[in-house]
């Protein structure tokens, strides 16, 4: 996908289509949609910096009880070990920095990894039945 806000909308819609067929209820669909949106925004805005020369790879799939979304950008990567806590008092009134926190809150699994030679890939998983 291109590194545009339109791609964010498209990815969210695609993910929700798969999630709906997987049988998630409205509440979970809202959570999935938002988590995918936040992940795509990170890839487009922070990873690829809206570059027309960089793409975002997107996958949404359902298998057994696992609904999986994988998003990869071609950016320079970032320090995943020192993400500020948006709930800390000193960060509460910041105007940004809540995306990853929301993804982790709404999905059952969330993994980030650096890609070689460059880029970041995130994997979001939600179970169709509670574990």
């Amino acid at each position, binding site marked *: 996908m291109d590194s545009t806000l339109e791609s964010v909308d498209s990815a969210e819609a695609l993910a929700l289509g798969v999630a709906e067929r997987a049988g998630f209820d409205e509440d979970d669909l809202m959570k999935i949609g938002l988590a995918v*949106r936040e992940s795509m925004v990170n890839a487009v805005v922070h990873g690829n910096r809206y570059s027309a020369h960089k793409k975002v790879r997107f996958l949404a799939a359902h298998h057994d009880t696992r609904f999986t979304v994988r998003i990869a950008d071609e950016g320079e990567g970032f320090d995943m070990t020192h993400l500020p806590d948006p709930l800390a008092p000193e960060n509460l009134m910041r105007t940004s920095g809540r995306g990853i926190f929301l993804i982790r809150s709404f999905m059952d699994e969330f993994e980030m990894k650096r890609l070689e030679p460059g880029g970041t890939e995130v994997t979001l998983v939600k179970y169709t039945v509670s574990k």
Partner: protein
Amino acid sequence: MSVKLNTRQVGDVTVVDVAGRITLGEGSSALRDALREMVSKNQKKILLNLGEVSYIDSSGIGELVSGFTTVTNSGGQLKLLGLNKRVKDLLQITKLYTVFDVHEEEASAIRSF
């Protein structure tokens, strides 16, 4: 559809009826611009009616926080009205629900200023 804003006066309170999606891009920037304009016009009492907001992401939440800070720093008050479950849940998860003065009914919100 992005976001639609309708501004009206109820006494000395400026009520902004917000409808649609407050997300990164048009939605969040429209809200930001509207609040900045109100502050520049020295409007001190602002009530954001979010009853028709169907969707908000972290950027939208950021604009609410930014607006609150801007209005408060200019000596004014910004309050929220009519949160649906989605917006309320997001503000609670991010521990912002208690930062804002949130109301469910317009008349009492107006009186609270």
